[in-house]
């Protein structure tokens, strides 16, 4: 009985000690959490012996939580998209990174060096995905092809972020992200082709899989996932390039495990880990020295050279963070309604 009590107290005292000795990572749920758990976290734990615990949630939920726990963060590491990362950074929620502590970061693509506070973890593109079996004879060689009158009532785009199609319209009209107003009339002309606006990845997949919207401005990784599920989707890369998207990683300001955080980020940029991420998610590695399987490397939206990165439409993440509300409001008022 005495031994049992001792064992109990040892366990009771041991658990908190072990709980403190872990790295907490904030990330989206589902396949994103699994992706990091199976790749980076696995390698990090192998190297350091420190387990990784995940807290998951939507982009906005996690941003709000981080704001509420400023200086005493729930997580040590946060994954988020590049422009949302700027909101964290502007609010003083991210630690300024010391790149000397992340040796593998020297291989990062220029476009993945988002800010002194957050760096790209992997990349993807928003491009045109379509059901060739339902759209006979329609080709997508340029973003301009979305304006084809034959696509009336067939197009879907994300409702949570219209920045891709807004900037594309601006570029096609001689403007750019900073001078997006130039594309307003062009985008209004696309209105008849919109059938719906999807609200999340699952909704996008469902609309394409059922053929409800046979063409979409779609996240390349989602399109590849659906292709893997047997949905006959063609991913087109317009001659102007896809709209580059970069998910990022950062160390939370106030984290007591910043040193472990650096080791975690360094593990993320290990070429083998990056290759594994590309293989699992069909996304682009953030570093230029990852050795990808040729079948993965040739996929649209997967970049292995600096030139491929530069060929994409890259919206400055800081500008996007500042313009998101204005773009979203204009899109709701003029295109969705």
């Amino acid at each position: 009985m005495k031994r049992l009590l001792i064992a109990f107290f040892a366990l009771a005292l041991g658990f908190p000690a072990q709980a403190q000795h872990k790295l907490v990572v904030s990330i989206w749920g589902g396949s994103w959490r699994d992706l990091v758990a199976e790749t980076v976290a696995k390698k990090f734990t192998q190297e350091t012996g420190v387990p990784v615990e995940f807290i998951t949630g939507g982009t906005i939920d996690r941003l709000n939580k981080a704001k509420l726990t400023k200086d005493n963060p729930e997580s040590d590491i946060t994954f988020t998209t590049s422009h949302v990362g700027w909101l964290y950074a502007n609010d003083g929620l991210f630690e300024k990174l010391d790149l000397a502590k992340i040796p593998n970061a020297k291989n990062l693509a220029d476009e993945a060096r988002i800010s002194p506070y957050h760096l790209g973890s992997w990349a993807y593109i928003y491009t045109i995905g379509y059901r060739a079996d339902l759209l006979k004879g329609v080709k997508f060689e340029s973003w301009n092809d979305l304006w084809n009158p034959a696509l009336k009532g067939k197009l879907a785009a994300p409702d949570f972020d219209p920045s891709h199609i807004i900037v594309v319209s601006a570029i096609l009209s001689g403007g750019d992200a900073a001078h997006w107003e130039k594309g307003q009339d062009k985008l209004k002309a696309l209105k008849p082709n919109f059938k719906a606006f999807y609200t999340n990845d699952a909704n996008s997949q469902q609309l394409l899989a059922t053929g409800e919207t046979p063409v979409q401005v779609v996240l390349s990784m989602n399109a590849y996932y659906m292709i893997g599920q047997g949905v006959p989707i063609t991913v087109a890369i317009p001659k102007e390039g896809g709209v580059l998207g970069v998910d990022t990683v950062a160390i939370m300001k106030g984290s007591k495990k910043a040193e472990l955080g650096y080791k975690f980020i360094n593990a993320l940029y290990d070429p083998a880990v990056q290759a594994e991420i590309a293989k699992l998610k069909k996304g682009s590695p953030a570093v230029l020295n990852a050795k990808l399987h040729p079948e993965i490397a040739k996929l649209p939206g997967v970049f292995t050279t600096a030139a491929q990165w530069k060929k994409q439409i890259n919206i400055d993440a800081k500008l996007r963070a500042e313009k998101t509300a204005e773009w979203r409001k204009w899109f709701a008022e003029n295109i969705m309604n």
Partner: protein
Amino acid sequence: MVCRKYHELTRKRPRARARGHHSPVVTNQPYLRTFVTPAALCALAFIVAMAAILQYSVRAYIPGSLEPGGLTLANFAALMKPLYARVFLDTVWICFLTAFCTLIVGYPIAYALVHVSNPTAKSIVLITVVTPLFLGEVVRTYSWIIVLGNNGFINSVLLKLGVIEHPIQFMFTTFGVVVALVHVTMPVMVIMLAAALSHIDRDYQKAAESLGAGPVRAFLTVTLPLSMPGIIAGVTTAFAWTFSAFATPQLIGGGRVNMVSNLVYQLGFASFNFPFAASLCVAGLALTLVVLSALRLAARPLEKIGPH
């Protein structure tokens, strides 16, 4: 006459109950405090949350920052655009349609639930009605996407039967949104109506029938008026329940049919413009209060039908 007698009976009962409960409440003050304290704390938390939303609604949005700026009424001024007025009116219209359709579909089910004497049949009706409550709103909505889609169940059957040549567009329409919302609100409506119907003494209907009224007339002149409090309660609850619907209009409406909650999400949260989202919430809350008060005023004459 029968109704008047029922009314007299029901008027006496609450008084008797009130007298009966008055005494123990006074003598059991410690128990009262035990129960009231958590409720008061919850109420306080809600008040604080509402105050936070109110203060956000009058703060300026700073692009690229999470921190709101100084005091402003610009968020409310921005709501004056016709787009927002239309979404608010659409919301009220969808709520009315949903409440009305739920009543029309739910009343016969509630009636069957109360009047079916076979316990097995009663259980089947009850399980059918209550089961949707155990499914999440998102799961139910995705099921409706499968049913209402262009390649969905309804269109496939109609196309195979040769009734239609091209799929009927149910998705991204007000019709599709209302159908799915009726399914969401149905359990609440049926339960409220069944509670009201079960309190009606069946002898009244029998008395009407023995005096020469047919089943339809007896129902229309006795049961239906006596169930009016349940109808009003059910319609009001369905209306308020629908007003806050989010996932169903978001997924079935596909950005084409928007309610206030969708606007809050699209313009507020998806854009990180929390002050504007807060002003939409405040305006939505004010509209709910106005519409529910109007509904209550409109229902007053109907409430009197029951007792008389």
